[in-house]
């Protein structure tokens, strides 16, 4: 290299005050001139360089978001919440597809007559329950242990995921309900049981390992639907007003217990 840039010129380049043609010229020169690169390294603002490099990396080197994250961000979720939800086992496309297929079978059964509609109503509350069970905890979340040792409160993560799962599963179930043969009060009779069962399960999960709690509540629900139907000689007994009132109460009690015992989610108590 036969010539070197003057210090004043390099300083102007560093401060971005050179006109474009001169800046391009200096830039081309710097690529081939180690001496000028050394000189500019001394006068460059290192913090600014670090910021610029960070900008470049952010634009070039940040991976594209997946479908779930893109959708959530589009719906207004902050990017970190979208990432937390994208890691939720029961918010994957395959899980939601499984929910849709289960409901499709239940809707088909309802169209076939008999106790088909009861089958739909019994199944619909179990889906959000299963979704919340699969959203958080030992045995279902591969990063559960790392998450526990992290500073974000596990209860907060549980709430974020449970809310997202409840909303998504309820939306799919509500959509399926519109395809039922009779569009009366019965098509929405699963909503309150779904909320009540989920909250009671979460409350129970503060006493016993989460999967055991969700499994026990699911079995109790199925038993209750069958026993009430047999006792009252009415397939819809578990969905009529007295039972709905019971589920509202259950939801309140569950929410109260979860709020009181939320610290139990902050350390592991077994799978």
């Amino acid at each position, binding site marked *: 290299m036969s010539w070197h840039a003057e210090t004043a010129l390099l300083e102007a380049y560093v401060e971005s005050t050179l006109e474009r043609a001169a800046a391009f010229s200096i830039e081309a020169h710097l690529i081939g001139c180690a001496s000028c690169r050394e000189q500019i390294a001394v006068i460059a603002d290192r913090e600014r360089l670090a910021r610029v490099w960070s900008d470049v990396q952010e634009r070039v080197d*940040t*991976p594209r978001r997946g479908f779930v994250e893109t959708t959530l961000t589009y719906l207004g979720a902050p990017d970190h919440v979208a990432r937390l939800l994208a890691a939720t086992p029961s918010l994957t496309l395959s899980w939601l597809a499984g929910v849709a297929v289960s409901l499709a079978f239940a809707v088909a059964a309802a169209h076939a007559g008999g106790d088909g509609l009861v089958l739909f109503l019994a199944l619909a509350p179990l889906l959000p329950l299963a979704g919340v069970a699969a959203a958080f905890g030992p045995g279902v979340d*591969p*990063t559960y*242990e*790392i998450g*526990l*040792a992290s500073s974000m409160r596990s209860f907060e993560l549980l709430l974020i995921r449970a809310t997202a799962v409840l909303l998504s599963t309820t939306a799919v179930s509500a959509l399926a309900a519109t395809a039922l043969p009779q569009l009366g009060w019965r098509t929405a009779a699963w909503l309150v049981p779904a909320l009540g069962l989920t909250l009671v399960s979460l409350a129970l999960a503060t006493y016993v390992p989460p999967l055991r709690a969700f499994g026990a509540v699911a079995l109790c629900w199925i038993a209750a639907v069958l026993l009430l139907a047999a006792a009252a000689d009415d397939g819809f007994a578990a969905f009529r007003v007295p039972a709905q009132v019971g589920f509202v109460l259950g939801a309140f009690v569950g929410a109260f217990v979860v709020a009181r015992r939320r610290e139990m989610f*902050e350390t592991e108590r077994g799978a």
Partner: protein
Amino acid sequence: MTSTTVEVRGVQKRFGRTNALAGPSFDAAPGITGLLGPNGAGKTTLLRLLATVLAPDAGRLRLLGRDPSDTGDRLEIRRRLGYMPQEPGFHRNFTAFEFVDYVAILKEMTDRRARHDEVRRVLELVDLGDVMHRRIKTLSGGMRRRVALAQSLLAGPELLVLDEPTAGLDPELRLRFRELLSELAQRRTVVLSTHQTEDVAALCQKVVVMDKGVTVFDGTPRELIELARGRVWLADDRAGDARLSWRTGEGRHRHIGVAPAGAELVEPTLEDSYLLLLGKLPAGERAA
């Protein structure tokens, strides 16, 4: 004077009928402390207590000067803690970058730009800069362990708890891990568990040997080696009543314990002392 970062006093933990920890006690200060012990000794349970994942049933535990049973203290500890579990789980469809980014969010790093810079920093620190955008399910076992180590380094923790960080690594990668861990330990407290006595000899300023849920040794690797001094022999033949004797690569027999006829006293290794401590020899020959 070194400050104590980890203080364990008689902690106990039961899982059903199994008594996983029966009251081990030790301290750890900045530098590397190695937990050595056979399977079932309670190392992993103890590390999970140090990582605040589990709470002890009894005993006293203080981490970074705080009490992990207190909600506020536990949060503060977690903010200054890095943890690599023995079998870290991954969201296998995530890339290495996405996974570490996810853990960074769990560590309350909500500013996207700063978080991404930190994710790149830790991935480059473990030499994964070139593969950070590959899906975890396509990475080798050694690379996955490095991803697990990278997440534990997020936000520059003061206390690093690593469960068998070198397990399953080939010799070259194990050396790279040792190099990295010794660098990290210059500024922080590292508590790691291992089956490898070579790791302890190469890395640790302090070693704690555990067996059946209790501490059976707490000191420096040099002090541990000294326990076997005068008890390790080389002989041409295997002693008939030897409880621990094996043929070395050079064709001679190494004995720990009473000297066989014509045996030559040799320098003990950390492994010799470890075997002595674990009671592989008759009680009369065991180290005090």
